[in-house]
């Protein structure tokens, strides 16, 4: 399992991460970010891609 952490003091809800890892990140009906904090190892590449595209560099994988 991978633990995902988003620093919500940095996140501006741009939703770029949603395109890279749609199973982990989504925007809710208020256009705010929601995410699943625990993910399967098979999601690692997608989560790393989400980290790459996050403008606020708010996403981290906590090993």
């Amino acid at each position, binding site marked *: 399992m991978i633990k995902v952490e988003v620093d919500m003091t940095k996140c*501006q*809800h*741009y*939703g770029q991460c949603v395109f890279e890892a749609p199973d982990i990140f989504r925007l809710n009906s208020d256009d705010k970010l929601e995410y699943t904090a625990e993910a399967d190892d098979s999601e690692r590449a997608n989560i790393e891609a989400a980290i790459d595209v996050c403008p606020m560099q708010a996403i981290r994988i906590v090993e």
Partner: protein
Amino acid sequence: MNHPVVIVGASMGGLRTAESLRRFGYLGPITIIGEEAHKPYNRPPLSKEVLANEVTHEAVAFEERAATADVNWVLGTRAVSVDQEHNTVTDSSGMVHPYSALVIATGLRPKRLNLANGDLAGRHALRTLDDAINLRAELTPGADVVIVGGGFIGCEVAATAAKLGCDVTVIHHSAHPMLRPLGTELARQMQLRHEAEGVRFLLNRSVVGVSGDSRIREVQIDDGSSIKCDVLIEAVGSDSNTEWLESTNIDLSDGVLVDSAMRAISTSGNIIPKVYAIGDVARFANPIFDDVPRRVEHWNIPTETAKRAADVIVAQLSDDEKFESLVQEQFKPVPSFWSDQYDIHLLAFGSLSLSDTVTLVAGDVTGECVFEYHRGDQLVGVCGIGMRSVVQSYRAKFI
């Protein structure tokens, strides 16, 4: 043992290339040569948080990944020339680096105003962390700050300086700040927002001179007037860092011309084997829009072009039979862009500045809103304040 893949430019583009090489299975050596002393960091905060607070390199640095722990970093060092016959790069310490593939990721630097009296203290431009730290020290409450250039970086700095209590004037060459990308309605609204925060605009104007003792005290405008100035910030566009490539046959007419596989193209139009360019410095055609090669200064482009180049390089180095089909594939990354000014967060997809008509399609320009950008009947971009799911839904239209 193969020669390393040599990446020149140790910023986002260079780092993402190294990471992507590993992700595509390359196990060999990687060297990254970078002029700045710092390891790669994120530039967008430089016009925002870094100017407003005591932010250190650590706070803006990209996180290092295990896969690239063995990269050979050659920092505080410039690449000065390339020998295409022997496939080597020479750096400013005289070291010669043979390469199996060369990745040009040297980005841009700010254009500077050409001013008589130009060696007065108090002139700034903003591209690097060191630039931001130097500028921060001068943005004291009550300082007369003059920003030349009302593009995104100029306006973000204006917002940050205004919040810090500076007296801010923006001198811009057209009728509204950010007019070319945003279009009249949204640009005018952004201007009003800045003016409400105390920022002054001198529009359709330019700077013709500066004066002072050892420091700048006054700026002369082309209408014959002068304004007080303690700090002059020049945000008038960028030039490509390609001087070190001048002895090569690469087409450097505006950045580095590359094909859809990020391979450098010569002045006679031929593909140059083993040499690639990515990021802000790369000029490539994007079939989403047309076949005209352009440089794209949007934050997601270094990452997208780095992945594309790394994929092709791994195939090149392993003599993979898929190389020929891979380089023929279309490459059409969707440019994405954002800008934070006060509590306004603009988000855009596509290439707004290609448009000839701009239409409000949702919301209200004084609050949350979405604009479509068309060139003829082709949709070339979307930009919104808030209404994220509407803006997001457009991205699929470009793919």
